[in-house]
């Protein structure tokens, strides 16, 4: 047993209203640069819908994820090492810009500079790739809330697996939103596809990252990821992906998408798992078994044997404590209401979802039934094959049984809590019908409905047990870093080229310049400038006033 910790997320889809706040704040934080205009580390898709990039779930076409060979081993679906190297000069399965969308802006300047005329000037859309006029025909969220109707929704790869009749009824009846980030898989096929070895899984918290200094732009990871959550920056020629906001996570803050989620539907916490068991679990033969197999690699953080093994694996005690309080553990293993997205890709994703019950409730209500009566709900979950089959296509590789079980638990909780809300007696039989107790129902209700910030996000800060580095300036030579001694300034490849200087070094040089310079002003252009920050108000430093034209005394 090799215990590793994984920072994970669960999203409660019943609460997602499709407001896209997560997408917008994520974009502002991470991808508002040129080269990644088309990139959304977090996006919210309408279901049914084609998703972003279009039809990414169709692995017959895009060849993402793993495939099980006849000998029972896993290899990337797009091909093993040799095939990858031979197709390195032109990746045959790379989504084109049109599958995402061509980024554009508007010619706003024209609104101000247009000559006076009879017509109101308009800002025409301009392509951000060529600068030419363009026609906006698609975007990351073009089919929001079933916009485009059946025509676009019918292209949903998950829907296409269902039967014709189910499909037509589904399109009439259901809609929910699916927010997506990188899954930070236990068995990441993007990392496996990277020829340079630039994509790695962080040993401490399992976050999957791209080393920008090692990425050589071979583009295989874009194909390798079945969720298409690795993007190619077309300006820098490097792959970029969701970072799980690791700078925030390291200091104990939730990701920006979670922090700003209006519906408070995201949960973040640790999962302990057995890294040695991952490979075998990901390679089980029957796709329907993958969901159970993934659960089998998770380790109970309250088990003394696991705690001992975790300590042996250098996992700090406060991390173990955080794993014990993890809402993720509760939602996946204790209440068993969370499901992984597309386990059939065999990547062991670690962003899980609580499937939405509301489509079922809605249809009951619309047909004049009591949408919160437990009998009605149970009957509907059983009878309404349509949403169950679709959800099974998303979350359990098509096996309806786990989805039904989750929906029944959610339905039972709804009915159980309604009785309390109405002042009626607690009905233990409702809880017992789904294999729970009334107290567990209350706990689950609390976690799903009213959990506070600290309960939804249980994030232990990262450890850096070398405090003396904090005092770098005083205790060690501050020029001792790779590429040093750096004197700041801009390199020959432009302003920000070269090795970035640590902030402490920048400050160090600024301070030293100020302390040792002969004059108070910057030496180069002291004729025209003076640093007012360290002028004490007395005297007239050279450069404070421009020189007299006649050259005389000032």
């Amino acid at each position, binding site marked *: 047993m090799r215990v590793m910790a994984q920072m994970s997320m669960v999203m409660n889809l019943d609460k997602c209203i499709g407001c896209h706040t997560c997408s917008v704040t994520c974009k502002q934080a991470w991808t508002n640069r040129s080269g990644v205009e088309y990139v959304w580390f977090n996006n919210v898709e309408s279901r049914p819908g084609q998703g972003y990039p279009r039809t990414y779930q169709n692995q017959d076409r895009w060849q993402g994820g793993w495939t099980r060979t006849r000998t029972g081993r896993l290899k990337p679906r797009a091909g093993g090492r040799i095939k990858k190297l031979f197709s390195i000069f032109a990746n045959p399965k790379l989504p084109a810009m049109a599958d995402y969308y061509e980024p554009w802006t508007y010619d706003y300047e024209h609104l101000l500079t247009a000559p006076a005329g009879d017509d109101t000037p308009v800002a025409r859309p301009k392509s951000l790739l060529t600068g030419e006029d363009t026609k906006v025909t698609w975007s990351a969220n073009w089919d929001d809330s079933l916009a485009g109707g059946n025509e676009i929704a019918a292209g949903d790869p998950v829907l296409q697996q269902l039967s014709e009749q189910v499909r037509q009824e589904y399109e009439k009846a259901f809609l929910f939103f699916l927010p997506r980030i990188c899954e930070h898989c236990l068995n990441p096929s993007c990392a496996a596809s990277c020829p340079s070895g630039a994509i790695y*899984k962080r040993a401490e918290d399992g976050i999957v990252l791209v080393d920008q200094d090692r990425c*050589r732009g071979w583009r295989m990871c874009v194909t390798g990821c079945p969720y298409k959550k690795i993007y190619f920056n077309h300006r820098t020629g490097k792959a970029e992906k969701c970072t799980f906001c690791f700078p925030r996570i390291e200091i104990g803050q939730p990701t920006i998408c979670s922090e700003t989620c209006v519906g408070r539907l995201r949960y973040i916490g640790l999962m302990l798992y057995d890294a040695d068991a991952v490979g075998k679990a990901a390679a089980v033969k029957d796709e329907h078994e993958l969901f159970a197999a993934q659960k089998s690699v998770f380790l109970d953080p309250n088990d003394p044997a696991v705690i001992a093994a975790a300590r042996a694996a250098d996992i700090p005690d406060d991390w173990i404590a955080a794993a014990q309080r993890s809402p993720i553990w509760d939602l996946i293993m204790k209440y068993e209401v969370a499901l992984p997205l597309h386990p059939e890709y065999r990547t062991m994703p670690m962003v899980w979802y609580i499937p939405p019950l509301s489509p079922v409730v809605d249809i009951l209500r619309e047909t004049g039934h009591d949408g919160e009566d437990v009998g009605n709900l149970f009957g509907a979950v059983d009878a309404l094959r349509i949403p169950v089959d679709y959800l099974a296509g998303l979350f359990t590789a098509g096996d309806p049984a786990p989805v039904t079980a989750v929906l029944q638990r959610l339905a039972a909780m709804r009915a159980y809590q309604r009785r309390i809300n109405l002042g009626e007696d607690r009905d233990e039989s409702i809880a017992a019908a789904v294999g729970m107790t009334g107290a567990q129902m209350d706990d689950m209700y609390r976690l799903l409905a009213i959990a506070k*910030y600290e309960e939804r996000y249980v994030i232990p800060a990262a450890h850096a047990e070398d405090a003396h580095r904090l005092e770098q300036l005083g205790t060690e030579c501050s020029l001792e870093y790779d590429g040093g001694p750096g004197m700041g300034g801009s390199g020959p490849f432009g302003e920000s080229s070269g090795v970035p200087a640590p902030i402490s070094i920048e400050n160090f040089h600024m301070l030293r310049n100020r302390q040792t310079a002969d004059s108070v002003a910057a030496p180069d252009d002291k004729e025209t400038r003076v640093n007012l920050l360290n002028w004490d108000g007395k005297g007239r430093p050279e450069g404070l006033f421009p020189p007299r034209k006649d050259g005389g005394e000032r």
Partner: protein
Amino acid sequence: MNVLLWVVFPYLSIAVLVGGLIWRYRYDKFGWTTRSSQLYESAVLRWGSPMFHFGVLMVLIGHVGGLVIPKSWTEAVGITEHTYHLMAVFVGTVAGFCTLIGMAILIARRRLTGPVFAATTKNDKAMYVVLAAVIVLGLWATLRANVAGDGYDYRETVSPWFRSLFYLSPDPEIMPGVPIGFRIHVLAAFALFAFWPFTRLVHAFSAPVGYLTRPYVPYRSRDPRPGLRASRPGWEGPPKLPTRPGRDRG
């Protein structure tokens, strides 16, 4: 002049190549990439890029065989000059034309596809000129020698000179006798080597052969960085006991 062209210039080029690569690697790892334009345009690239790259790899193998392996060695294993020559000219010409056509496709694509052209830098354009010059000159020299004349055995002249560079006893006296086509090609090639570290061509030196042997999923530890614990803003005063749990901030 001989010494300048056939001793100083090659050594200078090699020094710039090696030094430049080290400098670029230390200084600009972030810029070390293929800068692929496949995202903009895929259909033409699918033909042009493999044609060019596989062609140029074959050309590379041919050059290694012709320049590095002494003639006496191949003759020792029973390959006569005539056989070698036929083989080299045939395979070399096929590979050369593969490269040339691939490059023509790629350059045309670069010029004619809007987004690809917009992403082309001045450095790229200069690189294309030098690279194309080397390839065209090489093909031209070979064709001229074999179509107009009855072949030229560069393994008697150019190869010993090339190897002499690496024995550190350069022998510039051989080169003036070499046909002009070959001489220009060699000079252009060394110019390309000197330019190499400063272009996108550096990606050739990161050919990912390590992929064949490494495990599929790499794990790495977090970089040691100071200050990972939540830093408290200084204006909050001295540390206090933890606030009441359950306070809703979300």
